[in-house]
C-alpha cells in the first residue's frame, strides 16, 4: 500500500505542485476578470514576484516563508501602477496593452542581468515544503471567498455585468477595478515566486506567453464566474496532458484538444457555473 502511494507521488507529485502554481495564475486572472477586465499582466506580476523575491532571499537573506508574502506585495504594488495606466483604456485595448506588457517583460528579463541573470538565467537554491504551498493556496482561496462574500464582491459582479448601470447605483467602477488589479497583482506575484521555488531555476522564458495561455485556458475551463472554477480549471488543465500521456501516449495532444473542445462546447461557462445552479433551482421552485 505504502509503496503504491509512493509510486503515485513520484509520478504525479510534481504535477500536483505545478497544478497549484497554475492555480495562483488562474486566480490572478480571475481576480480582474471578475471585475470585467481581461488582462494578461499576471505574467508581469509573476516575473516581478519571482525575480525580485529570489533576489531578496539570495542577497538580503530573507527567509523563504517571508519571500512569498514579499512577492505578493511586489506584485500588488506593480499592479497598482499598471491599473493607473490601463484603466484609462477601453476593454479590448486594455487586453492588447497587457499582451504588450508581457512582451516587454521578457525584454526586461533578458537585459536586466544583475537582477535576472539575463540569458544565463538565475538559479534558485531555496527549499519550500510542498505542504507550505498547500497552506498558501488555502489562505489565498479564503481571501477570494471573503472577497466574493463581501460588498466588494457584490460591487465587482455589478461592474462586470454592466459598468454604466453600476455607476448609476453609486458603485465607482474605477475604484472597484483598481482593487481587482491589486488582488490580481498580489496573487500573480505569489504564483511567480511559487513557480521559481518549484523550478529552482528562472530564465527569461519562464515568465512568458505560455503562462498567459495556461491561465486563460484554466479559467475558461474551470469557469470564470466563481473563484473555485479558477482553481479547479488550473488542476484539470495541468493534469490533462499527464493523464493523456499515461492513457494513450500516441494521442496525447489530440486527446488534450478533444477534452478542451468538449468542455467548451457542452460547458461554455466552465465546470463551475453558479448561474447554472441557480437556473436549476429556479426551474424546480
Amino acid at each position, binding site marked *: 500500500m505504502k509503496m503504491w502511494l509512493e509510486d503515485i507521488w513520484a509520478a504525479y507529485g510534481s504535477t500536483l505542485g505545478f497544478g497549484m502554481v497554475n492555480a495562483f495564475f488562474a486566480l490572478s486572472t480571475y481576480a480582474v476578470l471578475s471585475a470585467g477586465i481581461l488582462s494578461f499582466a499576471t505574467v508581469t506580476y509573476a516575473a516581478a514576484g519571482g525575480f525580485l523575491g529570489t533576489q531578496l532571499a539570495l542577497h538580503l537573506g530573507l527567509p523563504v516563508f517571508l519571500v512569498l508574502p514579499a512577492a505578493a506585495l511586489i506584485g500588488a504594488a506593480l499592479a497598482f501602477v499598471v491599473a493607473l495606466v490601463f484603466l484609462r483604456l477601453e476593454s479590448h485595448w486594455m487586453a492588447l496593452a497587457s499582451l504588450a506588457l508581457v512582451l516587454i517583460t521578457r525584454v526586461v528579463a533578458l537585459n536586466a542581468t544583475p537582477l535576472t541573470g539575463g540569458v544565463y538565467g538565475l538559479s534558485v537554491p531555496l527549499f519550500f515544503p510542498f505542504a507550505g504551498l498547500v497552506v498558501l493556496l488555502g489562505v489565498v482561496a479564503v481571501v477570494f471567498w*471573503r*472577497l466574493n*462574500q*463581501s*460588498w*466588494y464582491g*457584490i*460591487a465587482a*459582479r*455589478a461592474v462586470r*455585468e*454592466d459598468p*454604466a*448601470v*453600476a*455607476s*448609476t*447605483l*453609486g*458603485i*465607482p*467602477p474605477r475604484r472597484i477595478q483598481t*482593487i481587482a488589479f491589486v488582488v490580481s497583482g498580489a496573487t500573480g506575484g505569489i504564483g511567480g515566486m511559487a513557480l521559481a521555488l518549484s523550478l529552482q531555476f528562472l530564465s527569461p522564458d519562464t515568465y512568458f506567453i505560455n503562462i498567459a495561455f495556461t491561465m486563460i485556458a484554466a479559467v475558461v475551463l474551470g469557469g470564470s*464566474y466563481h473563484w473555485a472554477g479558477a482553481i479547479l480549471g488550473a488542476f484539470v488543465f495541468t493534469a490533462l496532458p499527464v493523464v493523456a500521456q499515461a492513457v494513450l501516449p500516441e494521442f496525447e495532444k489530440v486527446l488534450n484538444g478533444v477534452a478542451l473542445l468538449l468542455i467548451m462546447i457542452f460547458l461554455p461557462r466552465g465546470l463551475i457555473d*453558479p*448561474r447554472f445552479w*441557480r*437556473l436549476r*433551482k*429556479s*426551474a424546480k*421552485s
Partner: protein
Amino acid sequence: MSLLLETDDLGKSFGGLTAVADLNLAVPHGCVAGLMGPNGAGKTTVINLLSGLLRADRGRVLLDGVPMQGLPPHHIAAAGIARTYQNVRLFSGMTVLEQVMAGCFLRRGTSLMASFLGLPAARAAHRAVQSHALDLLDRVGMADRAEELAETLSYGEQRRIEIARALGSNPKLLLLDEPTAGMNAQESDGIGRLVHALRDGGMTVLMVEHNVRLVMDFCDRVTVMNFGRALANGTPAECMAHPDVQAAYFGRADDAERIRSLR
C-alpha cells in the same frame, strides 16, 4: 414650493443632431413630474444627462441648488439621483435580492475592508441592508421571488425589480424611463400607485411616460418635448390642451385641411 431639480439651458448634440436644446426643467420637491413627447423627442437623452451617463454640451443641472453637470455618475447617485432604464438593465446571473443589494451599495453602512474581514459590525450592517432590500422588494410586490434568478422572470416583474434596485440608495429624485412599457392597464396602474406612495413618502419622481391616461391620472406636472425642446410646461390638462402639443402628436390643423382638399 422649493425646487429639487432645475436645469438651466441644458443642451446636448450628437454630431449634427441636436438631441436636447435649451431645456429648462423645474421639478419641485415632493412632486411626480412627467416628461412626454413623440419618439425621438430627446426624453431618454434628458434622463441620461441628469444621471450623468451623458455629459451635457451646455447648460447646468442643479439638485437642491448644487451643480451636478460634469460629475461622474456614481457621484450623482451619491448626491441623490437614482434611475431605471427604458430597456430593463438588470445584472445577468444575479438573484432578485442580489440586484436590490447592489442598489443598496451607497447605504451599506460599512467599509469595503470591514466587510471583507467580516467584522461583527459589518455583518450586522449587512443583515440590516438585506432586510431593507427585502422591504423594498415587498413594496414592489416581489418579496416572494427574492431568491430567483432575475432573468427568468417576466418583463413586468423585471421592471419592478429595477425600481426596487433604484430605491436601494434612498434617492431624493427617482428617474423612471418608461416604467410601464410593455405592461397592461392593471400593471400600469400598480406602477402609478407605487409612484404616488413614494411621493407621499417624500420622494420626488420624474418619469418619461407615453401612456397619456397614466400621465393624466398620476403626474402632478408635465413637460412635453419635441425635437429636443420643451413645447409646454404645466399640469397634465394644460399641456394636453396646448395647441403645439396637439400639433406634435396629431399633426397641424392646416395639414388636415390640405389632406381634405386632396380627396
